[in-house]
């Protein structure tokens, strides 16, 4: 029976199939790893959230006074700033995940820790957005009149708040599902590897 030690010599002598190894050309390429993709998403989010209020403002130049006194516009600006801060925080977490020169065990532990931290922040962020939206819908009519909110406010308070509670509950389960689909499988895989290494130590 062939043993690992028999394979050792063959492994060392085996010529390696030639693949493109133009190092300088590769350095011009971008990383296609998931961390790079995450960073790209957060960068896009930040740019988009900066551009949208600007666009709203420029397309309503004929009614600057109306725009500047609209509570919805300013709420939207606050919302965009919050998203930018949130995306920047996530971007920094993703940047920390890029470091690949630590020992394998340390790197795996760091990846798990950062992924869990990011997922936790994502849940908190989604909840924050939802609460902000609820607050806006409830408070705005007391400050400014918007026809689209009339129907909603004509409903009894119990129904409105029941709906909000349902929405928050739905968000809780949806977040769980999204987290599982986005990073769940990968987190399990990383945790299994760490467990394997801990069993060794």
């Amino acid at each position, binding site marked *: *029976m*062939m*043993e*690992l030690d028999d*394979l*050792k010599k*063959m*492994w*060392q*002598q*085996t010529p*390696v*199939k030639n*693949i*493109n*190894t133009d*190092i*300088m050309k*590769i*350095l011009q*390429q*971008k*990383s*296609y*790893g*998931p961390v790079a*993709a995450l960073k790209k998403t957060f960068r896009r989010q930040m740019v988009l959230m900066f551009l949208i209020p600007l666009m709203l403002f420029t397309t309503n130049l004929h009614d600057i006074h109306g725009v500047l006194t609209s509570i919805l516009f300013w709420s939207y600006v606050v919302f965009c700033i919050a998203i930018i801060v949130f995306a920047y925080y996530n971007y920094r977490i993703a940047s920390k995940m*890029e*470091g*690949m*020169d*630590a*020992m*394998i*065990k*340390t*790197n*795996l532990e760091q*990846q798990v820790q950062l992924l869990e931290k990011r997922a936790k922040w994502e849940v908190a962020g989604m909840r924050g957005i939802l609460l902000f939206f609820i607050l806006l819908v409830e408070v705005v009519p007391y400050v400014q009149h918007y026809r689209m909110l009339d129907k909603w406010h004509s409903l009894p308070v119990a129904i409105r708040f029941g709906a909000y509670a349902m929405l928050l509950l739905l968000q809780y389960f949806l977040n769980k599902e999204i987290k599982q*689909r*986005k*990073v769940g*499988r*990968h987190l399990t*895989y*990383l945790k*299994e*590897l760490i467990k*394997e*290494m801990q069993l*060794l*130590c």
Partner: protein
Amino acid sequence: MQQQEAERQFEKHIREHELLLHKVCRMYAYTDADRQDLFQEMVIQLWKAYPKFKGDAKWSTWMYRVAINTAITGLRKKKNFITSYEPASFPENISDESSGMAAEEQLQQLYTAIEQLNEIEKAIVMLYMEDRSYNEMEDILGIGEATLRVKMNRIKEKLRQLTKNN
């Protein structure tokens, strides 16, 4: 100018240890396209980490760390979901022509068995086959030398069992 000089130095270092990257690709990626992608990703990650290399570890040790970390956690983004590398077949037949059919079959059995190991065990096997010292393996993996020796014996036994069963 400084950037160009750094790039030249980096390329020189990579060229000296290029084989190391190919071996990692061979262990963790199973198709030519995957190997190409993994090689590219490893070089990019090495370049990103290059400014942090202070020479505390040997260049090859440092390269192994980045390469194995990239191979293990170097995931692909498929649609919107992060997925790990899918274990595929280990098709490369590397037996030399002089060896007989039986040896070739045994070799294939051994490769099939290695394929069934987890990513950490694969890393240990690869470093062992590369004749790395246990001390260096500890520096790369972060697992104690004594534990590695025990684990290596267990992996050998596991491979024996797996080749018997295959």
